[in-house]
């Protein structure tokens, strides 16, 4: 095992009495695992509601075209068919919306074409939904869907963002000239230009950040239920938080909030993808209203490849200006970001604002400029995927640094050290507008270099060469801006059976929130860990909720739980004063007990809850229970950071790249549960390795997706995963009560950079300066051959 975890710094004064086994910082196994490991998880498709009908979506097979007709007559006559719905049937509902409030560089509003749930006049990508078929059984619905005749006059298609910007490119929307959704700009162009003009050296790289399939193992699924008597809608669906999803759905259904309920059970992975309303949900809710029955829809994997939003897909020119000593003067990104055929809810964010926030990373970079054209193309819409701009920003910076070091003849470690923000400079106002509250970047860098045994690399490289392999070492420093601000709920409810329920609006889709949240509550209130439950997936229970995303859950829900706990204590003191017959002001809360100060008279919080359940009579005007429904204000963003070091071996005869060693030192602030944090790093790193080495969405010139199944789209498997070293080097955040920073996306940020830098390092013997992701065998082999021929 390669795990090493430092004990966290004390999270609060209450730590000394937290239960040793389940306290903050303990590697507590997850409470849901015994359920999941027996196959007893309740994912959406496991639901079988009485009277449930089944829906199948008819999708466009053309990337771009005008719909001339949809013939449903034959399909309607088929066995078991209950209804077929097209755009005209859904005309009364609202459209899917983009919630990003960015503006064009000239101050004008960005273009946000309305997206109805079903395409009516035009189709704009392969997979664009045009009809929904509902039948008694799934197989009947599939048969009927094949009988729906959709006549489309094809139009030329464009799939690459830069190509969509060219004159004469196919136009997706009449009112979006040039396909530009958003012409984004950040920074002071004149100052940045002046810095570049004065620079002793400028490094420039063109980088393609690959388009990816999110590929959560559970395909999306939903069950829509309309209750005519109550005029009430229920959507059972995976999500990343039911509060936000409900807000979107209320808007689309044009229904009062109290008439819409979202229920989320177990979620089989999401990585940013299941956070929002998708067209199918609107379709099945409508069908349920028409048919008076629950209607279920579950995607198949072929559908997922075109219907789930994709990730990344940026074409970037990165430039780094340095003075003669190697000090960074400015960084400039000029890019195209592919939005696909519609703007997803947070679609434009990754290539714009999140690139700004994350590119500066752990370095003193006085000036920063980002220009990004967010383009419509005839492809599936693009949105958040593990990191959503964070790994991308860090990747651009780290590649530029390695390239600059090579060009200037500087040591790449020394160049990084020279530009690291020092602890004495913190709080540090970055050129991104962010203020870093904490961090010790030089110390983490040193520890990472030591752990990776960089001194021994030359010997390992010789050994690889003896075996005919090229070896490279890559460094990936990262700093991510996590926890996008949002209100979060901290609900605490003392149940009739003696359990205590945490109610919060983040939503665990595999991370395992129940144990760490219970660890936090247990530490705050002394409630036994095993009595604590987590309720997260019922919108009727929530008064706020920012959902899970941007590595925010432990920070946002953690703060909400801490604040709610303080309210429980306040209420408990008032109630305990009646039980203990003392003034509330004389009562202190200590180690799970309400104590009359200076005496040994006390009552435990669980005992007090039991007395309340037993009918304790309390005067009017006093709290009547310990229950709290609290909504915390936004917690500030946090800045997890670290340094990952990867070594690769490349077979020059085949171009096959293998990641042979991987180590990481990470500052996630205080760890609540290091076991789960390590799991997040492992998963993130392998997703990063997947992008670096193999994952890639390809389209042909007609806009057909060529990588539309797991046969064609390479996914990382067990043999692609090196043993991953994980070290925690916590520097607690100062901006939230638990001192956490968030860990969910960091693995990707560290892996993209360290693995790609290692590959370029290995290939540098051929004079290769850069290679784009994915470094597939074909691409690496071709690059080697081209370099050899160039040199010959």
């Amino acid at each position, binding site marked *: 095992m390669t795990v090493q975890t430092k004990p966290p710094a004390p999270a609060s004064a209450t730590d000394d009495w937290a239960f040793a086994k389940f306290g903050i910082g303990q590697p507590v196994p*997850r409470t849901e695992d015994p359920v*999941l*490991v027996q*196959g007893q998880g309740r994912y959406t498709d496991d639901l079988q509601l009485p009277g449930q009908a089944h829906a199948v979506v008819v999708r466009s097979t053309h990337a771009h075209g005008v719909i001339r007709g949809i013939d449903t007559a034959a399909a309607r006559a088929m066995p078991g068919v209950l209804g077929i719905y097209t755009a005209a049937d859904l005309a009364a509902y609202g459209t899917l919306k983009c919630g990003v409030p960015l503006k064009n560089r000239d101050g004008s509003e960005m273009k946000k074409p309305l997206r109805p749930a079903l395409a009516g006049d035009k189709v704009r990508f392969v997979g664009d939904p045009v009809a929904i078929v509902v039948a008694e059984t*799934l197989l009947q619905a599939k048969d009927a869907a094949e009988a729906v005749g959709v006549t489309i006059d094809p139009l030329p298609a464009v799939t690459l963002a830069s190509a969509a910007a060219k004159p004469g490119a196919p136009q997706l929307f009449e009112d979006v000239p040039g396909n530009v959704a958003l012409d984004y700009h950040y920074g002071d162009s004149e100052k940045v230009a002046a810095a570049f003009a004065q620079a002793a050296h400028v490094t420039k790289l063109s980088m393609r950040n690959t388009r990816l399939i999110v590929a959560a193992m559970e395909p999306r699924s939903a069950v829509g239920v309309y209750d005519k008597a109550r005029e009430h809608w229920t959507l059972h669906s995976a999500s990343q938080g039911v509060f936000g999803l409900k807000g979107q759905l209320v808007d689309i259904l044009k229904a009062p909030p109290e008439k819409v309920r979202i229920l989320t059970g177990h979620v089989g992975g999401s990585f940013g993808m299941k956070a929002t309303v998708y067209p199918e949900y609107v379709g099945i809710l409508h069908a349920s209203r028409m048919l008076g029955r629950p209607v279920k829809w*579950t995607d198949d994997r072929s559908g997922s490849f075109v219907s789930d939003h994709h990730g990344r897909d940026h074409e970037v020119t990165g430039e780094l200006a340095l003075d003669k000593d190697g000090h960074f003067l400015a960084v400039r990104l000029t890019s195209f970001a592919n939005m696909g055929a519609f703007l997803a809810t947070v679609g434009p964010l990754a290539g714009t604002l999140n690139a700004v926030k994350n590119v500066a990373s752990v370095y003193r970079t006085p000036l920063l400029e980002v220009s990004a054209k967010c383009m419509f193309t005839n492809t599936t819409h693009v949105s958040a995927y593990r990191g959503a701009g964070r790994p991308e920003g860090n990747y651009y910076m780290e590649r530029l640094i390695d390239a600059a070091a090579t060009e200037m003849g500087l040591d790449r470690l020394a160049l990084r050290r020279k530009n690291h923000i020092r602890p004495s400079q913190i709080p540090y106002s970055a050129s991104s507008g962010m203020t870093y509250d904490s961090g010790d970047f030089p110390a983490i860098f040193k520890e990472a270099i030591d752990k990776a045994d960089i001194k021994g690399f030359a010997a390992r490289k010789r050994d690889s060469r003896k075996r005919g392999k090229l070896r490279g070492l890559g460094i990936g420093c990262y700093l991510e801006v996590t926890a996008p601000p949002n209100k979060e709920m901290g609900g605490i409810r003392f149940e009739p059976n003696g359990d205590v329920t945490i109610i919060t609006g983040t939503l665990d889709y595999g991370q395992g929130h129940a144990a760490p949240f219970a660890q936090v509550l247990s530490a705050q209130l002394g409630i036994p860990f095993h009595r604590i439950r987590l309720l997260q997936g019922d919108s009727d229970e929530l008064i706020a909720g920012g959902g899970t995303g941007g590595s925010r859950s432990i920070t946002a829900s953690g703060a909400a739980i801490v604040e709610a706990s303080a309210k429980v204590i306040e209420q408990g003191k008032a109630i305990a004063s009646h039980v203990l017959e003392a003034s509330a002001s004389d009562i202190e809360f200590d180690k799970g007990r309400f104590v009359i100060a200076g005496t040994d008279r006390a009552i435990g919080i669980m005992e007090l809850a039991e007395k309340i359940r037993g009918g304790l009579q309390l005067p009017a005007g006093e709290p009547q229970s310990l229950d709290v429904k609290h909504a915390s204000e936004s917690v500030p963003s946090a800045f997890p950071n670290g340094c990952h070091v990867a070594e690769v071996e490349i077979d020059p005869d085949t171009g096959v790249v293998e990641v042979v060693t991987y180590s990481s030192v990470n500052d996630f602030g205080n760890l609540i549960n290091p076991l789960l944090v390590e*799991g997040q790093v492992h998963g993130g790193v392998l997703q990063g390795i997947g992008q670096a080495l193999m994952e890639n969405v390809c389209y042909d010139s007609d806009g057909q997706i060529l990588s539309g199944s797991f046969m064609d789209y390479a996914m990382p*498997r067990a043999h692609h*995963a090196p043993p991953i070293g994980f070290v925690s080097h916590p520097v607690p955040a100062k901006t939230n009560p638990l001192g956490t920073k968030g860990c969910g996306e960091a693995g990707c940020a560290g892996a993209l950079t360290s693995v790609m830098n290692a590959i370029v390092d290995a290939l540098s013997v051929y004079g290769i300066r850069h290679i784009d992701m994915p470094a597939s065998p074909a691409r690496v082999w071709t690059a080697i051959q081209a370099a050899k021929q160039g040199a010959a």
Partner: protein
Amino acid sequence: MKVELTVNGESRLTEVEPRKSLLDCLRDNFNLNGAHAGCEHGVCGACTVLVDGQPVRSCLMFAVQADGYAITTIEGLTPAPGELSVIQDAFCETHGMQCGYCTPAMVLTAHALLQRNAAPTREEIVESISGNICRCTGYGQIVEAIALAADRLSRANAPQGGAVR
């Protein structure tokens, strides 16, 4: 048409269309939801069940083809109500799952491995789960779980002269 399937040691008669997959039959007809549809083209392994002890993609097998074989699903692996198998327990202990969607298939695959190889090497463990995609864990803690289970099982078997390497 009618088929009689032996699932988790129990003979069950049911009606299926000839084109219905074993996966859909287990889920729809028998309400055994532990086998999950991940890709329906035999590549991801999430639907793995054991057929006569061998891991099989239940999405690629018709229910009617399963007639006459002994089918084991994740629901049949638990030794007794409220108990976990050694392998299941190891998955919980090492954090060998995140979203849990691929997990039943991983556990069944590991079970089949340890039935035929009581002391697998790391490479053998990796090879055995190479047909199962997990998007969440990065596999490290799954491999660790299987190694831990193998170790515990070999210790438990040792007094009876079981295979210990």
